[in-house]
């Protein structure tokens, strides 16, 4: 494996401090609420769902260094299973979330054994292949269940005060979901487990020599990341009440990868910042610029050749420089 070009870990291993954690969560919540004041609320809701997906991908790519071109498969599976659950079994949104996340987890548990036999480019491509199969199943293979290109219209029930048709309430619920996922990943990535998967990113042979069973770690991370990807899928199905095959289309992977890259891979703030910046760009640019794909392509090239560390990479460097300057003055 060639590892030379990969970005080094941008922050050191640190013990989990409750104060810092509370501050982080406060900052994220405050910035989303602030954003909701300036841009339409349904956009912010869309951003929130997308950010959860980006966070889940960051665990696999940013922290463990395994680039997958098929992450959207689990997102779409979650969305489809949740809406089928709402349509045929019960209108309880929590049951739908549980079913969708469970389906994503089972799929990841099974496929994890298969895809993790490979590494590097074959890993990216075999995930793409499975994603393509999933897309085909949704679009035509299982047409009698998924309604093909027409998509599924799902009724959403109310759970007490939790009414998904009411945008502010839905936004509050989704924001709590985002914060919970952030918290979970924060705890995981700072734990010994997190250090191990970051070491696997740097050099998996050495981790193996240290006596770790790296397949188990890779498999666990893959399952966790994919399950967390199914979660925003179920949220999408519940909030929008509509699921079509585009949600599971392999092209969606590019958006997720790009969002992680903008923010800086291997950094949870980066994932959230990247998700928001990407969605802002695509919402504003796509409506104002007709040659949107070209702009996206050029931005990707600039990123690869000039801007590899992403927003958080540059931000942390800036902070470090300011601190050094202060230390020099004192």
């Amino acid at each position, binding site marked *: 494996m*060639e*590892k*030379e*070009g*990969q970005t080094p870990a941008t922050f050191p291993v640190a013990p989990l401090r409750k104060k810092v954690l509370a501050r982080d969560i406060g900052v994220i919540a405050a910035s989303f609420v602030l954003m909701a004041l300036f841009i339409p609320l349904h956009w912010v809701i869309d951003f929130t769902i997308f950010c959860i997906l980006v966070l889940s991908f960051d665990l696999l*790519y940013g922290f463990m260094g395994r*680039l997958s*071109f098929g992450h959207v498969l689990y997102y779409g599976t979650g969305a489809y299973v949740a809406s089928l659950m709402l349509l045929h079994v019960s209108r309880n949104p929590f049951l739908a979330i549980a079913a969708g996340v469970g389906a994503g987890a089972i799929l990841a548990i099974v496929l994890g054994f*298969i895809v993790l*036999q*490979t590494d*590097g*480019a*074959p890993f*990216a*491509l*075999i995930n*793409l*292949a*499975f994603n*393509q*199969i999933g897309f*085909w199943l949704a*679009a*035509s*293979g299982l047409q009698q269940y998924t309604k093909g290109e027409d998509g599924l219209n799902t009724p959403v029930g109310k759970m007490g005060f939790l009414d998904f048709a009411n945008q502010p309430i839905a936004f509050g619920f989704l924001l709590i979901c985002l914060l919970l996922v952030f918290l979970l990943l924060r705890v995981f990535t700072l734990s010994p487990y997190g250090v191990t998967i970051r070491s696997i990113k740097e050099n998996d042979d050495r981790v193996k020599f240290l006596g770790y069973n790296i397949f188990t770690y890779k498999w666990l991370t893959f399952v966790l990341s994919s399950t967390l990807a199914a979660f925003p899928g179920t949220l999408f199905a519940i909030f929008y009440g509509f699921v079509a095959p585009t949600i599971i289309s*392999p092209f969606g992977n*590019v958006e997720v*990868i*790009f969002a992680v*890259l903008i923010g800086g891979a291997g950094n949870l703030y980066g994932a959230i910042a990247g998700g928001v910046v990407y969605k802002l760009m695509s919402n504003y640019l796509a409506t104002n610029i007709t*040659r*949107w*794909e*070209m702009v*996206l*392509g*050029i*931005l*990707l*090239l600039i*990123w*690869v*050749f000039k801007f*590899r560390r992403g927003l958080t990479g540059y931000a942390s460097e800036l902070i470090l420089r300011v601190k050094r300057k202060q230390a020099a003055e004192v």
Partner: protein
Amino acid sequence: MSETLIYGLTIGAILYFFSIGLSITFGTMQIVNFAHGMVYTVGVYFFITFLPVFGKIFPLAMALAIAAVLPIAFLVERFIIRRLYGESLDYAIIATYAVLLIGADLIKWVWGAMPQPVSDPLRISLRLGDFSFPLYRLVVFLSAVALFLGLRAFFNRSIIGRIVVAALEDRAGVRCLGLDVNRYFSIVFVIGSGLAVLGGVLYAPIATAEPYMGFHILLVAFAVVIVGGMGNLTGTFISAFVLGLVIAITARFWSQAADTMVFAVMALVLLKNSLLALWRRLVGAVVARAD
């Protein structure tokens, strides 16, 4: 069934033309080159533009389209691919994907998003017993076989080909002989791009040209390259035809499932070793119990 066979061989031939370049880039530079799809699509659009201008002479327009694409391929190699050599895999995938996106959008800008049909240049059907098929498809198949033999001669006899084959085996070793490996890779890259355009132009009368045609063939061609072994030129030839037949036979029964079947085959090949190990373990357990 014979029609299916002819169709499968035609698709296999097109896949072969397209996959050679991909396979070489992967074998030599360890780069998954999505930009190959861009070169292919742009070439087909050049061809469509040249065809009416040069009096509908198919081979002339084809040659001009290939010639027009070669400089583009050279620029892509010089300024994108070469800068990515030795980088980790992800950057190469992302950068070449960006090139593919830019290419698709440029085509929509210049030629519009509507699919453009191309008519069969030969318009002759061959009769064989009680079924008939277009002569054109046979020509496509035969040209792929001719190309395979030609490429074999090129890689075994010519000095450029032999240097590239040696570099596929051991890049550092070739560099130690004082040869500028990159220059030869660049030549082979440009040749591969020209062959992709050749495949695209030959495919245009069977399918239609549209801005995203590069995306679709890329996915299938990656399967070809993986099944055939990355950088293995004979393997690519065989797997292109096998997967072409898989597509044709699946499409006969269930047309939408064709691509999916290809990926299923690819998954099986990737998992070959693990499946074999599992099989041996199972057999071992059964034998042990029998004893």
